[in-house]
């Protein structure tokens, strides 16, 4: 059996001290590099950058053909490291992600590592396309991969310390799809909505600029490995321990949390909604801790050494909206209601 390469020794020098200033410049370079390939999505790029440095998985959501896949490929290219993608289909089985079997040229059966194992611990981005087309068995494998960054295969634990899972789903079709379980959604740091750019210059470029017509050429024109993906874990630790979250901000976030869970008490009013029965659950503690992680990165990217309420507000919707579960009667109007709810929470909860 062909064994995958495991625990390849990192060649980067891990002992070099982390310089947050220099890393911030690199991060901005990273953003600029992606923006060369993806126009009119500055906010999505910023959010993905935050996710990369907060070591969080991201679910992209949006219409067909708005550039979700291009964006993720651009991120993968700029980040460097091994990149794998898999298409979610209804007949995809968990084993398809781990290995595939075939007869080789000698007519002998062979088992080769699948997309997840192929690059060993070098894997930096695993891109799951159309995740809602895959079956729940696949979701549960993915859950493990996301939560623990490890899987068990061939009687062995495989670790992926640098792994980030990016997934996308299009929201137009619901036939032959499997809604992601709440537990899986909760493990994504962010759920980023990708919309068609509204800026007319960006729209004009997308339509008439020839470089956007060939995605492969566009992606390969990007500089590879703008940042060293192997050091991001260490950087993320430094960011989390350096950026200050003051007690006042802690109180503010706790107040936000309470207001999201009990909007009626916070005095939030949404038209045509019985606010006392709106929230069925969610806004998990894990979600709130992810929020703080992402807020620290956002503060760092903004050149600050402290988290301010603006950082929270900037990422709150993407970090929390998919963790809030509404009463079933309101689920169909979810987008509007969640937007009003989060807007109301930020308008009502005092900071500082």
């Amino acid at each position, binding site marked *: 059996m062909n064994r995958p390469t495991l625990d390849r020794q990192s060649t980067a020098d891990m002992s070099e001290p982390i310089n947050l200033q220099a890393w911030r410049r690199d991060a901005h370079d990273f953003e600029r590099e992606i923006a060369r390939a993806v126009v009119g999505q500055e906010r999505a790029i910023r959010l993905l950058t935050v996710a990369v440095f907060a070591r969080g998985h991201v679910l992209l959501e949006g219409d067909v053909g708005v550039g979700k896949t291009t964006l993720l490929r651009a991120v993968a290219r700029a980040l460097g490291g091994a990149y794998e993608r898999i298409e979610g289909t209804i007949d995809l089985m968990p084993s398809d992600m781990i290995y595939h079997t075939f007869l080789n040229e000698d007519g002998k059966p062979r088992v080769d590592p699948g997309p997840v194992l192929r690059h060993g611990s070098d894997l930096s981005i695993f891109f799951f396309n159309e995740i809602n087309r895959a079956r729940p068995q696949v979701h549960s494998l993915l859950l493990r991969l996301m939560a623990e960054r490890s899987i068990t295969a061939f009687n062995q634990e495989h670790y992926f310390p640098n792994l980030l899972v990016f997934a996308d789903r299009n929201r137009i079709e619901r036939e032959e799809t499997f809604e992601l379980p709440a537990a899986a959604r909760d493990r994504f740091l962010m759920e980023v909505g990708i919309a068609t750019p509204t800026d007319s210059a960006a729209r004009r470029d997308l339509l008439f600029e020839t470089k956007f017509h060939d995605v492969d050429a566009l992606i390969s024109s990007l500089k590879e490995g703008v940042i060293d993906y192997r050091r991001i874990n260490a950087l993320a630790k430094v960011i989390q321990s350096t950026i200050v979250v003051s007690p006042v901000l802690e109180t503010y976030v706790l107040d936000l949390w309470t207001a999201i869970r009990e909007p009626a008490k916070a005095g939030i009013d949404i038209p045509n909604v019985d606010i006392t029965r709106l929230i069925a659950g969610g806004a998990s503690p894990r979600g709130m801790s992810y929020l703080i992680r992402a807020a620290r990165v956002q503060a760092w990217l903004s050149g600050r050494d*402290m988290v301010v309420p603006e950082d929270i507000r900037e990422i709150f919707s993407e970090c929390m909206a998919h963790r809030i579960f509404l009463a079933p009667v309101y689920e169909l109007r979810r987008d509007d209601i969640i937007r009003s709810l989060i807007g109301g929470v930020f*308008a009502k909860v*005092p900071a500082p």
Partner: protein
Amino acid sequence: MRFFWMIVFVLIGIHPASAAIDAVNIYEPRTFGYFIGDTLERDVEVITSGHTELFTAALPRPGPLTYWLDLVSIDHTEREDNGRQIYDIKLKYQIFYSAIEATELDIPAFPLKFKNPTSVAPNETAPSDPEEAAKKYAASVPTLRLTMSPLRNLVLNDLMPEKTKELSDVLRPNVQAHLISIASKQMKLTIASLALAGCGVFLLWHYAIWPFAKRAGRPFTQADRRIRDLMRYGVADGSYQDALLVLHRAFDETAGHRLFAQDTSVFMRKHPRFAVLAPRLEAFFESSRLYFFSDDRRAAEDRFPFESVRKLADDLAREERSSA
């Protein structure tokens, strides 16, 4: 002027001790010069002795006696004098006879009834003569004949030559109507008025009409006042923080939502009257951010001291008032 007749029926003979009905004395009023509506009183004194008593329940009752005569009242009192019972009966009549010319009328007689009228003293025998016995054992109030006079037109001038006034002037004033008690109605009126006033106030409040109409708030003016109050307690750390918070809340209220440092430019565009204070506003938000969200509070306080906060609040309040 009044005179009366005294009619004495002496029912006892020479031996006084044995009589049952000793005397009925009637004191009559004058018998002439009566007009319609006049009243007259008759006093009757009945004296009995022994076991004989006047049967007062049998006295006539007040009320009309004939079509022209009413017995207005009848009172009787009883006293004892020297072993005798003396009954004083006071009868009051009113005449309603409208005489056209002088006429004589009789007030009818009525009998007096007694208990044990026939009892006699032990040393006496009952009279054998029935007529004498009747006198001895029965009595009545006799008829009274009156002379009624017709009413005539009176010539005032003749009666009162010095009077030259109208008849109405010399007549007695009309009877004053007695006042009906309206205390309960006044109470009800008071309660109803209070209820009406209460409803009015409620409606004013309900529709937010003056004085319940919401005036445009003056958050900065109030914040300025509170910061001045805070300054009185000295510039301790706690009061500096309170002052920042007070000013933040004023910003929130003016903006209509929670205002963060990032939002100052939007705030300026919406409220251009504060544009002149823009650099100081930004400095305030910057230092407040430093104060609340970094661990270097001292630096924030040095950068934007309490006095600056007060001045900024003062200027904001002035701008707020000048534009309102």
